[in-house]
């Protein structure tokens, strides 16, 4: 093995109140694809931003080709040979392919852009990627995969030694991924070091030679792909000590036996949407908590959005209480008494400038229409009841919801849907990013709701939490529902992880 091309040693980075990176090492060898793995908040994107000069690290050192380097910004990093292609392709769809490859550094003569030279250079670069397209065509007319290639071509134009691909595959379909991988292999053979960030396990095992796993801002380890089993990888990413950390109370396991499973409250049959989630079937019964387990990007949110009608399914059926229904949008899902607390509270959930009271009654009011307002006394009563029941603080319903902490905002969102008295409550990551106390309260609430007969679809990245609350766990991997496990004796995080890692064969 040759010397590493790029070495990051002991990298530390703190933000006010958070240690984002703590003594992280990373080595990239020329002619190698290196995967950077980790769950949300593990520190991947911070590490990439340090590497590409977007952030400055507080500790540690970076050497490139044996020489210490310090980048003042992305431009300098690019000059030094470190190029990055981001997930959301940062190109201009209205310009031609050739321009997107070269804009900002197009060759000019007396201030006049030499278009023939631009086209020739762009063609050369795309040739290197074995991509034959008309470089004069608009970028926007090409598929996402081709756009990604063009972004890579742009990155290569600066004589890249290190190419960082930040989740390039998240919106590609299988054949497009193949195309990208062929390019990555070709670059590898040219001696370029490729740092590959992805959430798809299969892809890591297909393309990566080596990987570095991060968790909670620390490096768990560096492994050769061939020497690390998928199960060990999942364990390394999720971390078993999480269980000990997060076990606030030793809540008893849910008893599956007590549950009578009659007609499901909501059942999906072959429901799917191209590019989002493969067709799946899932039944949720009265009083049942179904957990969705899977890594980030495995399709958890996509399942939730289809069940709520937020996205239109392009195949399959949904039945409510056994009757097939057409969900044409959130309103019709609400009519069927389905509620959805989205993952991203700020952008998809709350209207931040409205008050706590207004946010809580929003869904109920939307259902009644604008002309039939919920009487103010009724509003105050409902809001007061849920502010008390969920212990929302500060207990002032007339302040803008943006002034609340994350945990309390989550409770406001819960309250919004609880007052609509749903039959099925879909909770997408309700405990993420909130403090430990609020988390325990929300978990307790889920138990109470299901004891009261409500069906709950509970989505969380934390397996312990899913296992503690759910009667049944549906496992997702790579946008596919791969297993449905009864939460009976013997189901533990190991078995769920095994299911995630193996794709449900375990």
């Amino acid at each position: 093995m040759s010397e590493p091309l790029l070495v990051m040693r002991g990298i530390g980075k703190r933000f006010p109140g958070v240690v984002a990176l703590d003594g992280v090492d990373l080595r990239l060898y020329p002619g190698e694809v290196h995967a950077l793995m980790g769950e949300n908040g593990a520190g991947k994107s911070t590490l990439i931003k340090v590497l590409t000069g977007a952030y400055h690290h507080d500790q540690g050192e970076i050497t490139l080709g044996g020489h210490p380097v310090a980048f003042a910004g992305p431009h300098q990093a690019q000059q030094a040979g470190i190029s990055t292609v981001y997930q959301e392709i940062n190109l201009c769809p209205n310009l031609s392919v050739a321009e997107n490859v070269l804009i900002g550094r197009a060759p000019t003569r007396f201030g006049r852009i030499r278009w023939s030279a631009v086209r020739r250079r762009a063609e050369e670069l795309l040739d290197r990627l074995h991509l034959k397209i008309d470089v004069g065509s608009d970028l926007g007319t090409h598929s996402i995969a081709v756009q990604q290639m063009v972004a890579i071509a742009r990155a290569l134009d600066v004589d890249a030694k290190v190419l960082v691909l930040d989740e390039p595959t998240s919106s590609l379909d299988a054949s497009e991924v193949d195309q990208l991988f062929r390019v990555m292999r070709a670059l590898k053979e040219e001696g370029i070091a490729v740092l590959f960030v992805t959430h798809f396990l299969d892809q890591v095992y297909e393309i990566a030679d080596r990987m570095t796993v991060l968790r909670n801002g620390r490096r768990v380890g560096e492994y050769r792909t061939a020497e690390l089993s998928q199960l060990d990888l999942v364990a390394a990413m999720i971390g078993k000590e999480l269980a000990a950390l997060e076990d606030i109370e030793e809540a008893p396991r849910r008893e599956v036996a007590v549950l009578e499973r009659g007609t499901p409250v909501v059942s999906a049959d072959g429901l799917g949407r191209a590019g989002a989630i493969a067709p799946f079937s899932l039944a949720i019964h009265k009083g049942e908590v179904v957990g969705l387990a899977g890594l980030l990007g495995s399709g958890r949110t996509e399942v939730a959005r289809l069940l709520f009608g937020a996205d239109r399914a392009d195949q399959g059926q949904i039945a409510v209480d056994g009757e097939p229904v057409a969900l044409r949008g959130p309103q019709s899902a609400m009519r069927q008494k389905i509620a959805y607390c989205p993952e991203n509270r700020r952008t998809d959930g709350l209207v931040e400038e409205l008050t706590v009271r207004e946010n809580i009654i929003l869904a109920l009011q939307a259902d009644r229409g604008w002309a039939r307002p919920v009487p103010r006394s009724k509003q105050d009563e409902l809001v007061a009841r849920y502010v008390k029941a969920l212990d929302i603080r500060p207990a002032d319903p007339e302040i803008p919801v943006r002034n609340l902490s994350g945990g309390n905002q989550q409770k406001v969102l819960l309250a919004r849907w609880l007052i609509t008295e749903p039959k099925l409550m879909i909770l997408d990551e309700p405990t993420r990013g909130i403090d430990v106390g609020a988390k325990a309260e929300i978990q307790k609430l889920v138990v109470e709701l299901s004891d009261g007969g409500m069906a709950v679809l509970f989505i969380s990245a934390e397996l312990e939490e899913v296992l503690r609350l759910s009667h049944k766990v549906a496992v997702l991997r790579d946008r596919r529902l791969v297993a449905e496990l009864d939460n009976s004796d013997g189901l533990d995080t190991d078995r769920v992880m095994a299911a995630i890692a193996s794709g449900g064969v375990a």
Partner: protein
Amino acid sequence: MIDLKTRPSQKVAERMRVIPVRQKYLPVTATAVLLAFMYGLGVINYTGFSDTQIVLNVFIDNAFLLVVAVGMTFVILTGGIDLSVGAVVALTTMVVALLLENGWPPAVVLPVALLMGATIGFLMGLMIHYFDVQPFIATLAGMFLARGLCYVISTDSISIDDPFWVSVANAQLWFGGFFISISVLIALAVVLIAAYVLAYTTFGRDVYAVGGNPQSAMLMGLRVGRTRIAVYTISGLCSGLGGVLLSFYMLSGYGLHASGMELDAIAAVVIGGTLLTGGSGYLFGTVLGVLVLGLIQTIITFQGDLSSWWTKIFIGLFLFVFIVLQRAVTRRRR
């Protein structure tokens, strides 16, 4: 070689290529067809319409609008809008008339007029870029300012009798049996220079990039701020020049000149196929757009029994058609 996965929409696009029109040229082509149709209509229906001089008169009567619309094209290509152009044109006529009245030599008045327009544009650009004021509001302030300044100078019309100005205004450049004014030459020169800048210079391509996706443009290392400020400066400069041309045309300065010209300029740009959301369009389209507006007026004049207000309705109608067309095109491109 990797065989390209073609998406369904792309296949459709390829099939459409039987007609040798690329999708991005579609709006401009539509405008050209419309223009030809209108011209044909005029030639068939009215005697004397086919006279070449009629077409040249459209240029003569709209030279100032053409220049202003060129500046507006730059702004709209970046996704912005400039409401101040009509007011800046009026202010320029006013300042020109005032300075000439006070005996300033034309050689000084001209640069002062252009510089003033550019400065107003530059200041609006600063507000928009550095203080995140919406272009709509910032240029609205510019409009109030410029119109207000007109009336500070005088609430009445000031006539221009400077010999140089009068001689330029009355000059007719004859060729064959036809003539154009000096203003037309200037306007065409502006169009050519601007088209060159947009197509062949780094700055021009930055304008398109910023309009396409400002976030990406920034990450690709382009100087977004400089570009945005520059387009408003250019628009101001064009308004200044348009004001000078209008002062040739009118031989007077007046605060009520060019009222509503911002609408005409925006309409010309949109009818010319430039997307109001930015990033797509051609200067050639803007020229066609101005000609469409001018031809509407000419046809209505020839018709005789149609009153002038139909011009506005037709412009609105064309605006509607083109905006819906644009909407359909961008939707297909998703």
